[in-house]
């Protein structure tokens, strides 16, 4: 099929798939970010079992392939009488894996904080919660905007897991849309190229926005 034929026939599908990819990316990154921050707090808290749990969580989800996690969610969870929709399985996998990387970025961001500032906060009588909430996390976040930007892109690519489960046509994301088209017509490489271009364009926008935010919030030292 030519490009014009592909776009005239499947243009709407691509558009919907692009919007679905954006929606999944935003949703999953938000979830990954929230969990990543929470796990990071556990990893530095004074209670050892919580620190161990936090480290364990990160080791598990940083080191499991997305497809393997998806298989576990789709086939193993029902045995535990937890039945998630296919889309929800994709979302859960695309939250958990990036959340582990989010936590790793924050841990490295914490290393940029001057130990003297931590001591000053203690000397002023701040509690652990205040120290974390007002000094540590804000500084760690502001010094990790660029890796977090990459993580948004990484999360977007992880949502391609949606192509591995049977979603309804209106739920398809960019990779799933290609599968859908190629199972019905001979879209060939071109069908992939359209999705790839849309991924790249989105990544460029994400990178540009991330760079702007980084310049704005970066901490002068």
């Amino acid at each position, binding site marked *: 099929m030519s490009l014009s034929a592909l776009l005239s026939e499947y243009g709407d599908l691509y558009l919907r798939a692009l919007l679905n990819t954006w929606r999944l990316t935003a949703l999953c990154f938000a979830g990954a970010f929230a969990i990543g921050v929470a796990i990071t707090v556990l990893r530095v808290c004074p209670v050892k079992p919580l620190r161990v749990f936090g480290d364990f969580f990160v080791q598990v989800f940083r080191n499991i392939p997305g497809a393997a996690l998806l298989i576990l969610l789709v086939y193993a969870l029902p045995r535990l009488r937890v039945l998630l929709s296919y889309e929800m399985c994709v979302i859960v996998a695309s939250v958990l894996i990036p959340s582990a990387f989010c936590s790793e970025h924050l841990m490295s961001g914490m290393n940029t904080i001057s130990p003297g500032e931590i001591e000053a906060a203690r000397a002023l*009588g*701040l509690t652990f919660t205040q120290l974390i909430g007002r000094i540590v996390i804000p500084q760690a976040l502001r010094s990790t905007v660029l890796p977090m930007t990459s993580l948004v892109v990484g999360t977007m690519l992880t949502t391609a897991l949606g192509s591995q489960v049977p979603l309804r046509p209106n739920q398809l994301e960019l990779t799933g849309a290609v599968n859908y088209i190629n199972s019905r017509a001979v879209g060939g490489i071109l069908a992939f190229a359209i999705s790839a271009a849309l991924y790249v364009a989105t990544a460029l926008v994400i990178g540009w926005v991330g760079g702007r935010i980084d310049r704005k919030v970066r901490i002068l030292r």
Partner: protein
Amino acid sequence: MTQIQSRDVPVIELRHVDKHYGDLHVLKDISLSVGKGEVVVIIGPSGSGKSTLCRTVNRLETIDSGEILIEGVPLPQDGRQLAALRSRIGMVFQSFNLFSHMTVLDNMILAPTGVLKLNRKAAKDEAMALLDRVGVADQAHKLPAQLSGGQQQRAAIARALAMHPRAMLFDEPTSALDPEMIGEVLNVMTELAADGMTMLIVTHEMNFARRVASRVIFMDGGSIVEENTPEAFFTQPRSQRALDFLQSIRN
């Protein structure tokens, strides 16, 4: 009766404090007290344990044995009681340690609002008054990195004062400063001393020590070698080690 007693209780008291870093015995049987309104200056060669001593008072450094009492009450081990106690002891560091992601004003009001639960308006008014007192009110809305070292250190002193501390610890407050900025920080400290603030100061500024100290403590090798009035210490120290130290810095 109780009032007389409380006047007699030292603000800071260390009893037979020992501390090791591995095999290194950094504090050896240190006993020391700082009464209300006293300015005690600790001097000594680097590595003598004077900074470590200063940092044990609010438990930024733990001790192996001995006792530390603040206004007669033993230092809590950790948790909220320790945080509450720290909030009553101001500390000024060699490297200023202003929070780099906040404006000077936000640095000032963080602990008063978060720890003392002052409302923002009251904390802000007081912060501005304190910044004015140390001469950096015009820098309130800047970030620490935009200030000179001397301005940062004066702001850091103001930040500690905003907690209404019972005593102030100074850990080599001028050692990281360019020479032309040392005077402005020492002036602020001199004024504080004149206002009756209880102060424990680790410093290499001998003229300042001589002018402001109520007592001088000379440390070497983790021990207090000599405790003396500033006049006597700088003119005729009792110990040979103090004499050697004073001669070495005069040359």
